[in-house]
């Protein structure tokens, strides 16, 4: 299983852009990178997924450099409601699925007014 490393916590202010970086040095060729968001008393929720370069959706952007040993989740103009734990997940390979991989401890993002 590809192991991931993320900062334990980050603070930001409303309206700022937040970038959370995840390291995954042992990522395999077939692994995708997926980010989830978790609010208290809820299960994680899918945010974005990518394989290489850049992916953007209505919620976030995901930047993956050419060597794919890291990835950066970018949240534009955060609000108080973006306060949550963010998990970086690296897939286990072609014949298995992302769910079998182990979620790390995540990054606790606190957005302040």
């Amino acid at each position: 299983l590809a192991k991931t490393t993320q900062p334990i916590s980050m603070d930001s202010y409303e309206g700022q852009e937040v970038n959370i970086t995840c390291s995954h040095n042992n990522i395999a060729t077939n692994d995708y990178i997926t980010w989830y968001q978790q609010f208290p008393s809820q299960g994680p929720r899918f945010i974005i997924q990518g394989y290489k370069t850049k992916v953007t959706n209505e919620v976030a952007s995901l930047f993956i450099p050419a060597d794919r040993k890291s990835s950066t989740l970018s949240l534009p103009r955060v609000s108080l409601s973006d306060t949550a734990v963010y998990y970086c997940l690296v897939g286990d390979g072609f014949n298995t699925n992302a769910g079998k991989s182990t979620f790390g401890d995540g990054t606790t993002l606190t957005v302040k007014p």
Partner: protein
Amino acid sequence: GAGVSQSPSNKVTEKGKDVELRCDPISGHTALYWYRQSLGQGLEFLIYFQGNSAPDKSGLPSDRFSAERTGGSVSTLTIQRTQQEDSAVYLCASSLLQGINEKLFFGSGTQLSVL
């Protein structure tokens, strides 16, 4: 239903008792997963089911833990002779198919407290 449903939302039990946790996945989803999350920690994979295949039990922490999935839909996670260290949130997730592109849809979890 609209999402993954788990019951009960909270369960308090005494050490040594057995508990059953239920998960009702999104209709049509073939893959189902159980995770455990201790307070302030990440998610620990326990077990997953894919269609009619034998489940992958590689994450179960001990033989006190078991799970079944009936008719390819509802799943029950059973913990026998509960211990205090079993206290955690048990999360269930489902996905449409098994594959690296598949999103996981999680329920809100069952908070288990073993006294």
